[in-house]
C-alpha cells in the first residue's frame, strides 16, 4: 500500500513530526529529541525502500493528489534522487542520534521549537530531492532554508548575526532562482522538469531560456556556496551552535548540489541547441578555484570549526568541478563525493561538538595530547575522517578523488589533475597540524597513564560515521556500479 506513495511519505513523515513536536514537549523534557531521532530513522527506512524500489524496477513517478502532470505537481524517485535521499537521511539520523544521546543540543522548553525547525528543514531537503516541479522546488528550498536560518541562529548574538547575513544572501539567491523560473515559464509555459526539457528540446535554447538558465544557476551557486559566492559560509558554520553546524554543514549545501545536477543534466541537458555558452567550463573553473582557495584559507585558521568551514568551501569545489567536467567519471566522482563528504564532515563537526561540550574549546592551539586522553575514541574517529579528507586509501575520500582525477584525465584537462593532487597536499598540511598536536609531544610520564577506551552512547555516532567512511571506501565499487552508474546521463 505504502509502496506507490513512497516519494511523498518521507516528506510527510518530517512535516507530521514537526507538528507533533509541541505535544512531545508536553510529555517529557527529552521527548522532542527522541521524536526527532525516531523520525529520522523512519525517514531513513522509507528512503531505503525507495532506493530498493528504484533499483528493482527503475524510476517511478507520483502525482500529488492524482492530478496528472504537467499541470499537477509530480514527485519522482529515480536512482539519483533515491541516492541523495538515503545520503541525507542517513547522515541526519546519525547526527540526531548524537543530539539525543549526548545532551549536546539545547534542552528544556527551547528544544521544542529547535527540533520542530530541524524536522521542517529535513522535510524541506527531502522535498527538494523528491520533487519534479520547478516551482515546488523553490517552495521546499525556502522552507528548508528558513528553518535552517533559525537552527543556525539559536546560539550567541554572534550566531544570530551571521545567520542574518546568511538569510539575506540566501533570500537573494532564492530571488535569482525565482526570476530565472519566471523567464523559463514565459518561454515554455510549463514548470514540470521533464515537460520543460521536452519543450526546450523542440524549441531550442532561445534567448529567454538562456537568461533563465543563467539566473537559476546563479541562485543555486549562492545557495551551495560556490567560490565567489561563498562569503556567508565560514561565519555561519563557525558561529552557530556545534550541534546545528553538524546538522546543516554535511547536507545543506549538498542538497543545492542536487538541484544543480538536476537543472543542468535533466532540465537543460548538455548540448541543447547550438548554444556555445561555456557553462560547464565555468563551473569547473569555479570549482577548481574553490578547491585551492578553500584549502589555502583553511591553513592559517585558529578555530577548528572555521577551518572545517573553509574546507567545506573546498569540498564544494570538488563537487562543482566533477559536475562541470561533463564526463561520466567526473559525474560519478561528484556524486560519490557528495556522499563521502557528508559522512566525513558530519564526523569532523561532531568531534568539534564533543570538544565544545567537554569545555575543551575549539581553538586549535589549545588541542593537546591531554584532549586525546579525555576523548580517545572520538579523537580516533576524527583522525580517520581527516585521513579520508586528505584522501589516503582505503578511506572513502580517496576513491571520490580518484574518480574526479579520472574524469579530468578523460576530459584532457591536466590542470584539474594538478589542482586535485595539490589540494590533497594542502589538506594534509592543515589536518596533520591538528593530528600532530593531538598525538605528539606527550611527556613519558603522561603517556604511561592508562586511557579509558570505551564505546559509549556519547561517541557511538562518531564511531558509526568513522566505520561508514571505511566501509564506503572498501565497497566503493559496489556503490558506483549498483547505485551511481544507473543515474549517469549520456554525454
Amino acid at each position: 500500500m505504502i509502496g506507490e506513495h513512497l516519494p511523498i511519505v518521507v516528506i510527510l513523515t518530517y512535516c507530521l513530526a514537526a507538528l507533533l513536536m509541541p505535544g512531545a514537549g508536553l510529555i517529557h523534557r527529552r521527548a522532542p529529541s527522541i521524536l526527532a531521532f525516531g523520525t529520522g530513522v523512519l525517514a531513513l527506512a522509507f528512503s531505503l525502500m525507495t532506493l530498493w524500489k528504484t533499483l528493482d524496477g527503475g524510476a517511478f513517478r507520483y502525482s500529488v493528489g492524482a492530478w496528472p502532470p504537467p499541470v499537477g505537481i509530480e514527485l519522482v524517485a529515480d536512482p539519483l534522487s533515491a541516492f541523495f535521499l538515503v545520503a541525507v537521511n542517513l547522515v541526519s539520523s546519525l547526527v540526531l542520534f548524537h543530539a539525543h544521546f549526548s545532551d549536546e543540543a539545547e534542552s528544556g522548553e527551547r528544544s521544542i521549537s529547535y527540533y520542530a525547525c530541524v524536522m521542517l528543514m529535513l522535510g524541506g531537503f527531502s522535498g527538494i530531492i523528491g520533487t519534479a516541479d520547478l516551482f515546488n522546488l523553490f517552495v521546499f528550498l525556502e522552507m528548508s532554508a528558513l528553518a535552517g536560518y533559525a537552527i543556525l541562529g539559536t546560539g550567541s548574538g554572534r550566531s544570530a548575526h551571521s545567520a542574518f547575513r546568511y538569510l539575506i544572501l540566501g533570500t537573494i539567491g532564492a530571488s535569482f532562482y525565482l526570476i530565472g523560473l519566471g523567464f523559463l515559464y514565459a518561454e515554455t509555459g510549463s514548470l514540470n522538469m521533464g515537460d520543460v526539457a521536452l519543450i526546450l528540446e523542440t524549441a531550442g535554447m532561445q534567448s529567454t531560456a538562456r537568461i533563465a538558465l543563467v539566473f537559476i544557476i546563479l541562485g543555486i551557486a549562492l545557495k551551495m556556496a560556490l567560490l565567489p559566492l561563498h562569503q556567508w559560509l565560514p561565519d555561519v558554520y563557525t558561529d552557530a551552535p556545534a550541534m546545528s553546524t553538524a546538522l546543516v554543514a554535511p547536507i545543506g549545501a549538498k542538497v543545492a548540489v542536487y538541484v544543480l545536477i538536476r537543472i543542468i543534466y535533466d532540465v537543460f541537458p548538455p548540448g541543447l541547441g547550438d548554444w556555445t555558452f561555456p557553462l560547464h567550463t565555468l563551473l569547473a573553473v569555479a570549482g577548481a578555484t574553490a578547491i585551492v582557495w578553500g584549502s589555502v584559507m583553511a591553513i592559517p585558521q585558529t578555530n577548528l570549526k572555521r577551518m572545517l568551514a573553509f574546507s567545506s568551501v573546498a569540498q564544494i569545489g570538488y563537487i562543482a568541478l566533477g559536475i562541470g567536467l561533463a564526463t561520466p567519471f567526473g559525474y560519478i566522482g561528484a556524486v560519490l563525493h557528495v556522499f563521502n563528504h557528508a559522512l566525513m564532515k558530519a564526523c569532523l563537526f561532531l568531534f568539534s561538538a564533543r570538544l565544545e561540550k567537554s569545555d575543551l574549546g575549539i581553538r586549535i592551539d589549545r588541542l593537546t595530547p591531554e584532549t586525546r586522553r579525555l576523548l580517545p575514541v572520538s579523537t580516533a574517529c576524527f583522525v580517520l575522517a581527516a585521513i579520508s579528507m586528505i584522501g589516503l586509501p582505503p578511506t572513502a575520500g580517496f576513491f571520490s578523488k580518484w574518480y574526479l582525477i579520472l574524469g579530468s584525465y578523460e576530459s584532457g584537462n591536466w590542470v584539474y589533475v594538478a589542482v586535485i593532487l595539490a589540494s590533497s597536499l594542502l589538506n594534509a598540511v592543515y589536518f596533520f597540524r591538528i593530528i600532530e598536536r593531538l598525538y605528539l609531544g606527550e611527556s613519558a610520564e603522561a603517556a604511561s597513564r592508562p586511557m579509558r577506551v570505551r564505546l559509549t552512547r556519547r561517541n557511538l555516532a562518531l564511531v558509526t560515521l568513522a566505520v561508514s567512511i571505511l566501509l564506503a571506501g572498501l565497497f566503493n565499487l559496489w556503490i558506483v556500479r549498483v547505485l551511481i552508474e544507473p543515474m549517469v546521463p549520456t554525454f
Partner: protein
Amino acid sequence: MTAYYLIGALFLVGLYGVIGVRNMIRKVIALTIANAAVILLFVYGASEAGDAPPILEGDAGIPVDPLPHALMLTAIVVGVATVGVALALLMRVYKAFGTIDEPDLWKELQK
C-alpha cells in the same frame, strides 16, 4: 517592454539596499522591495497572454494566464515568513550587541 525595465530597476534598488545600506532593518525592507520586483515580474508576464480576468463565465476576451498569480501567492507567503525570521534574528542581535547598525556591529564583533 518599459514595464520590464521598471521591474528590473526596482529589483536593482532592492539589491542596492541590501548591499549598501548600514541599518539592518532597512536591509530587510530592501529585501522585500527586491521580492516585490520578482512578484511583479511574474504578474506582469502573465498579463501578456491576454487582458481579461481569468473567469470562465461570459466572454470578456482572452484571459490573463492565471497560473503565475497562484504561484505568486505562495511566493508572497514565503516572503512574509522570511521577513519574520529576519526580524527575529535581528532582535537577538540587538539584545546581544545593543545595535543594528552594521559598522557599529562589526566593531562590537571585533572585541
